[in-house]
């Protein structure tokens, strides 16, 4: 209990440090999956550890202590009161953050549903007659691809095919739910923020690799990305939210061979997540023993 209960916090930091490195070295499909799984496990373990720390305050409740003294049990207080209160506070913050993330998710879905209105249900591509160059996948059943007319006219035929294949890969491999899971994990455990960013980058890389395989040409895929980015860049500085050199890194990645799967690294990441869960479980049994020892 003394150490286990704090370990998910340490593991969150480790995972966040490892995430960006793994994002560059490991095949994106594998890396995105293991990082998301580990992030979800770690976030749940972290939240649960905070619940345990807060629950340990019960040991300080006067009736419990009085009863324990009457029974002649010494009360071994595993958690200082200050930490218990801090844990309560952290839990409230987490609840608020998760609520905000879930609401944002629903808001996005509502907005996306409205974009599909008026288009036949069995059509994959939805074009928006807009001068703003944009392209994104709309998850759902069936998933749709939204591209603006400005983006379509900026690209050459082979590059349009890359764009469509890229967005199709997002839908086929369910990148929407994957990113949502990573987002919620980072909302529950702010230490996992870098992992969420890494997963966001990895699903783009994953879709790039799929598109390159679909058109059978990495060079054309890189050029499609470059042209789309330059077109969108000209639309104004705040038209697109900024991520750290993501497009340049994706273009660079397409100019070399696809990264290897590196199973040992993937397993190590999964182990981090599993370890967080196991240690949290161990801390739980410790606390239960301690409290029941006091209460019995």
């Amino acid at each position, binding site marked *: 209990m003394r150490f286990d209960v704090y370990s998910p916090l340490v593991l969150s930091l480790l995972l966040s440090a490892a995430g960006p490195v793994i994002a560059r070295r490991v095949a994106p499909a594998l890396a995105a999956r293991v990082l998301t799984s580990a992030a979800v496990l770690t976030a749940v373990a972290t939240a649960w550890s905070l619940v345990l720390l807060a629950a340990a305050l019960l040991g300080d409740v006067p009736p419990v202590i009085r009863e324990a003294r009457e029974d002649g049990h010494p009360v071994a207080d595993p958690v200082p009161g200050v930490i218990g209160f801090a844990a309560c506070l952290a839990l409230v913050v987490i609840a608020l953050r998760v609520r905000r993330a879930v609401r944002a998710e629903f808001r996005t879905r509502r907005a996306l549903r409205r974009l599909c209105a008026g288009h036949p249900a069995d059509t994959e591509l939805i074009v928006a007659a807009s001068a703003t160059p*944009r392209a994104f996948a709309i998850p759902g059943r069936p998933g749709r691809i939204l591209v603006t007319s400005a983006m379509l006219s900026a690209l050459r035929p082979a590059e349009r095919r890359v764009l469509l294949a890229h967005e199709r890969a997002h839908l086929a491999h369910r990148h929407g739910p994957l990113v949502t899971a990573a987002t919620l994990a980072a909302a529950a455990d702010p230490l996992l923020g870098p992992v969420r960013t890494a997963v966001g980058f990895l699903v783009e890389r994953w879709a790039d690799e799929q598109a390159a395989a679909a058109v059978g040409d990495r060079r054309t895929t890189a050029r499609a990305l470059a042209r789309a980015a330059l077109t969108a*860049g000209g639309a104004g500085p705040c038209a697109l*939210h900024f991520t750290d050199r993501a497009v340049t890194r994706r273009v660079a990645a397409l100019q070399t061979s696809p990264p290897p799967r590196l199973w040992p690294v993937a397993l190590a990441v999964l182990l981090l997540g599993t370890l967080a869960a196991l240690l949290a479980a161990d801390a739980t049994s410790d606390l239960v023993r301690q409290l029941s020892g006091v209460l019995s």
Partner: protein
Amino acid sequence: MAGTGSRGRAERRSAGALESEVLAALWATERPLTPAEIQAGIDGALAYNTVHTILKRLYDKGLVLRDADGRRGAYRPAKNAAELTAEAMHEALDRGPDPIAALQQFVTGLRPEEERALRELLAGGGA
């Protein structure tokens, strides 16, 4: 360069995917296109008959208009739904916080030096 495959037909495209490509080709230009022009404007060999079949399907769905601008046999995309979608998109974009910015966009913003590097990439190697 390692891993740069030859320009090949790596995957058979489904009917839905072909439909998207024809529609994208029509939207990419201002003027109406004949099936032969569309065939030329699509990456990869596609039989004329296939293009024709896809156009008929798009026409039946109301996504394209035929004999556009007095050009017999030429097609152009129908604008109504696309304009409504654009309106809804801009509404969503203007109303902060941007619910669409949260999505995975095909591309994101660029720094000036990144822009230069990408321009060089496109300038090099022709095509």
